[in-house]
């Protein structure tokens, strides 16, 4: 492993800031010998600019020229992208332009980025220096937005460097022309690899890479990544896997530049016990914006972004240009904001994860993170957005929205200083993704199953795939993989006499192309502003404000007000696929639209928060308000030790509550809540519902849970026994709507149901309805079906976080402490304020129905008699 020194003393960046080519100014104290291996146009260009390439850039070039694949881990601003392209540019310069009339030459370099916008951004930034050096290199991008004519031309006359996304690569590979197109491929550059590999997109991409290796055996890979907890995971991903061999790419590691200056917002205001709005801090945040050139404000969810944006404008007396950017906004609105940012016309942008990845937009000198960052690595990457210059410290302010978040922010801040990383590991390849890929490969050309199996197991996420599983995948792709073999005549792929699998008809390929990819859209409805006319009926054709998740709307009744697109809106109803809203004349939306964090609290941060609670010394470092809150908790109830699980029970209104302080993140808590309510139900304690936050879980029931636990020794330990992950989990999974949502994603990715059908767009709603019914039927008749296996695998790590829950149940065994209180405790307040948003499951549904029906029994109604 080589660790070239990235930041030598004596550098100054003043006046030299190219977004992409951030390179060092020549420094006489540094040896320059290596740079001389560069072709003349490069040396000349560097000379004219007064710059020189960085050590890791030359190191990567040397390794590439020696025929090796390499992973480059470097902080933002280290000139990662130039490093990634340098081997290609040098090689292409040596090769020279292809003379007209030569035989067909395929693409030389493929660049894959997780974001369409990033591919476009890179093209713009790469064109400039390539033009200035006069390099004989043609660079083009290909995304979903590329016009058909240009795509056709690219196939006939490929550029040297193609910038594209994982989905477009899958499409190119599923094409009959793929062999020709990729035969001359030398390099594949994966940008932001850390963010690609942990998702299903990464699985699909790894399979694409395996195919590229088959089409161009000498291809080399270059991975560009931010700091991760386990680089070897990524190094393996970049290299072809073989049984019993430890194949992996080399590693070039650039140690981080200057330590970021992170602080937690100091405020005179009262930090609330609960909530996610951080409203208390608006004035302080606004003051910070005024003091800086351009501020990026990150939040975790769309609705938080909405709220913050609105609050800022309420006090924006100086009329500072402050904009809003999130994935649900109309695309034209988003592009406007991006353009304004690139031109440095904005003072602040409120953004969600859509701005997470390394796109260079103007000079940001402050990052404000509102709400807790949920993960230490996530925080580091977001802070990296400020000051894209490695050797200047980034400046960031964390704004916790409530007192739990103060602790979480403190933990993340500590982690940042010790360089702790908590990025998730690269998972095992998903079977639904594999099914999609197999169909794609059949669309490209007839395939031999044995050789395709070898190819697939060379991709690191699939290196342990069993042959039997692969056969089931093929069976699934062909006829649905059902034990009842009734679909032979409808097979999508068929084995012919030569032993190869072929696509049955061209429609199959068409269907594949329309449904490629692993990003399943959740049902979204367009939000349209309408006016009521004098007669009170709704008009048509107002402005479109963007899209909102359907399940959010399901909570609303007509007249409810909520926040969207920076406005308080009144919900009027749903017409076809649109959500109609009107202007609400209030500043106080009725429906709190926080839908919970998208990212669960990382295991690392959770552990840190538990430690902080348990350790008086670490508590002492917290702000006074938080200390007061915790000491009040200590007086009223208690503070749990690090390995102890605190459970409080108390009555409130007509219900009895149990709050569990597990600190395992919202997903694991949600699963725990589902399982606990089942068990309580069986015990006859009439649980009614539960709600989960990142820190704790509240369950409520008609019966006095606390009294039962006191009365029956061991009842609590029994309730929390690990065996709940056995039958209870199985039974619950069978009827869980969460699992159905997971199934829907798997079914769309695997091609069982279409996201889009030729000529007919299916709305998300339609897909959801049918997927639920399919799930029920499949589960009832073929519980071992491949797709149900894929769904359960997803659930274990994803939506349900079962793995983490299992670890927790082990950890707390014998360490449960029950406190029976006569009223709500300070620590319980945050979760209690979240109540009212979870769906009730199974058994209790019929109970509620009977309540509704029983109301009726008391009414005298002619001709009706319920027996």
């Amino acid at each position, binding site marked *: 492993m080589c660790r070239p020194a990235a930041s030598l003393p004596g550098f100054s960046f003043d006046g030299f800031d190219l977004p992409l080519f951030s390179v060092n100014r020549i420094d006489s104290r540094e040896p320059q010998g290596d740079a001389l291996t560069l072709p003349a146009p490069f040396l000349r260009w560097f000379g004219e600019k007064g710059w020189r390439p960085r050590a890791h850039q030359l190191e990567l070039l040397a390794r590439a020229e020696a025929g090796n694949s390499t992973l480059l881990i470097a902080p933002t601003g280290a000139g990662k992208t130039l490093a990634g392209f340098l081997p290609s540019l040098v090689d292409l310069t040596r090769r020279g332009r292809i003379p007209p009339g030569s035989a067909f030459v395929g693409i030389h370099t493929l660049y894959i980025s997780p974001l369409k916008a990033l591919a476009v951004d890179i093209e713009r930034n790469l064109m400039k220096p390539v033009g200035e050096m006069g390099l004989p290199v043609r660079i083009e991008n290909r995304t979903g937005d590329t016009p058909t004519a240009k795509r056709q031309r690219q196939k006939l006359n490929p550029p040297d460097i193609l910038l594209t996304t994982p989905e477009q690569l899958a499409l190119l590979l599923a094409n009959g022309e793929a062999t020709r197109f990729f035969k001359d491929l030398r390099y594949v550059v994966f940008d932001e690899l850390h963010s690609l590999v942990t998702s299903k997109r990464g699985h699909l991409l790894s399979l694409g890479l395996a195919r590229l290796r088959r089409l161009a055996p000498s291809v080399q890979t270059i991975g560009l990544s931010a700091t991760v907890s386990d680089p070897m995971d990524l190094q393996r991903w970049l290299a072809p896997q073989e049984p019993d061999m430890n194949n992996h790419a080399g590693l070039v590691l650039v140690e981080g530049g200057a330590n970021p200056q992170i602080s937690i917002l100091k405020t005179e205001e009262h930090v609330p016990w609960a909530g996610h709005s951080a409203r208390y801090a608006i004035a302080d945040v606004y003051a910070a914006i005024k003091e800086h050139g351009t501020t990026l404000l990150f939040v975790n969810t769309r609705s938080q972004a909405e709220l913050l944006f609105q609050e800022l404008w309420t006090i924006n007396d100086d009329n500072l240009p402050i904009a809003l950017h999130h994935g649900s906004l109309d695309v034209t609105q988003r592009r406007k904001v991006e353009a304004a940012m690139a031109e440095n016309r904005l003072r602040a942008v409120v953004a969600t994860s859509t701005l997470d990845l390394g796109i260079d937009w103007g000079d940001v000198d402050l990052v404000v993170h509102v709400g807790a960052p949920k993960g230490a690595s996530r925080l580091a990457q977001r802070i990296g957005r400020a000051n894209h210059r490695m050797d200047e410290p980034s400046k960031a302010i964390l704004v916790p929205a409530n007192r739990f978040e103060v602790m979480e922010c403190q933990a993340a801040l500590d982690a940042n200083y010790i360089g702790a990383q908590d990025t998730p590991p690269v998972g095992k390849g998903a079977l639904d993704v594999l099914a999609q890929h197999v169909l794609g490969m059949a669309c490209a050309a007839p395939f031999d199953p044995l050789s395709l199996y070898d190819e697939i197991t060379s991709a690191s996420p699939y290196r342990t795939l069993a042959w039997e599983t692969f056969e089931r995948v093929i069976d699934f792709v062909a006829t*649905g993989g059902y034990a009842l073999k009734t679909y032979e005549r409808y097979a999508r792929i068929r084995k012919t006499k030569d032993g190869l699998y072929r696509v049955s008809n061209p429609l199959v390929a068409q269907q594949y192309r329309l449904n490629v990819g692993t990003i399943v859209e959740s049902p979204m409805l367009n939000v349209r502003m309408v006016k009521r006319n004098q007669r009170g009926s709704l008009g048509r054709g107002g402005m479109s404000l963007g899209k909102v998740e359907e399940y959010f709307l399901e909570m609303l*009744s007509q007249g409810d007000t909520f926040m969207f697109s920076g406005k308080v809106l009144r919900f009027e109803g749903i017409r076809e696929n649109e959500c109609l809203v009107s202007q609400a004349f209030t500043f106080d939306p009725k429906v709190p639209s926080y839908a919970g964090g998208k990212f669960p609290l990382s295991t690392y941060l959770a552990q840190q928060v538990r430690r902080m609670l348990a350790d008086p010394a670490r508590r002492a470092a917290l702000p006074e308000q938080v200390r007061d809150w915790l000491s009040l908790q200590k007086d009223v109830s208690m503070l749990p030790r690090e390995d102890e699980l605190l459970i409080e029970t108390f009555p409130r209104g007509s219900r009895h509550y149990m709050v569990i302080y597990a600190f395992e993140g919202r997903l694991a808590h949600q699963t725990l809540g589902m399982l606990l309510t089942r068990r309580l139900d069986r015990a006859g304690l009439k649980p009614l519902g539960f709600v989960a936050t990142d820190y704790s879980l509240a369950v409520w029931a008609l019966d006095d849970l606390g009294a039962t636990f006191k009365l029956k020794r061991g009842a609590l330990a029994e309730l929390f026994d690990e065996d709940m992950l056995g039958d209870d989990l199985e039974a619950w999974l069978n009827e869980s709507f969460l699992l159905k949502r997971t199934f829907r994603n798997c079914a769309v990715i695997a091609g069982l149901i279409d996201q889009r059908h030729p000529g007919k767009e299916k709305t998300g709603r339609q897909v959801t309805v049918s997927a639920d019914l399919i799930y029920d039927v499949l589960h009832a008749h073929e519980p071992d079906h491949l797709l149900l296996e894929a769904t359960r695998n997803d659930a274990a790590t994803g939506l349900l976080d079962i793995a983490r829950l299992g670890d927790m149940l082990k950890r707390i065994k014998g360490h449960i402490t029950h406190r029976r209180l006569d009223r709500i405790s300070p620590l319980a307040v945050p979760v209690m304020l979240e109540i009212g948003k979870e769906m009730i499951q199974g058994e209790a549904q*019929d109970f*509620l129905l009977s309540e509704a029906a029983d109301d009726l029994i008391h009414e005298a109604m002619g*001709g*009706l008699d*319920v027996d």
Partner: protein
Amino acid sequence: MHRLAHALSAQTTAPLLHAQTIVNGVVAICDPLGSLYLPETGTLVVSDLHLEKGSAFARRGMLLPPYDTLATLRVLEAAIVRHDPKLVISLGDNFHDRVGSAVMPDAFRHMIAAMALGREWVWINGNHDPDGAFGLPGASMDELNHAGLAFRHEPKRGDAVGEIAGHLHPAATVVRRERAVRRACFATDGTRMLMPAFGVTTGGLDLRHRAMTGLFDRSRLVAHMLGRDRIYSVRFANLIA
């Protein structure tokens, strides 16, 4: 899901609590399996079976599970065993598409033949299967007037006294303790009735949907909702959208 549970359950004779109502003077029993029984004439009515829905999709390249027909027929079998009717009326959309009845595997054909043994059977044509049922016992027709009631697939707009229809897959939602529960339902105002969809892979349309407007006298409308083992009868005014 509970309907599928019925389809799988060995004890199809387990106690189920039904609701009795009167449509245009005719006594009608709504049972939680989703079938309507008219005791005065020994008539069993089911609607929107959508048999062979899976294979209809498979023909178009979406290989949905082929178990929907079997599951639906099992529930139908249970309903027939319970009531032992003289006449079975299937109210249209018996098959998910025109060719469904022709391509249905023989095993299912035999199941239907066994169910029809010793009773009369009428297939009302629906919009999905307007050409009738092929190779199956019973008669296919667009409409049937029988026992003072009119059986057709699509409900007539406006006033239709004594009509029993399907097509719209009615469902209703109640809210209790801030929780919503939605179920398929029989809907009747005493003048006419809309049947719930019987097929296990059919969705539902809310009674408050605009497609339902004008069909009922809402002040007398009751939704008989399908619970796991009983019918829950709720007045329209107590439902929510």
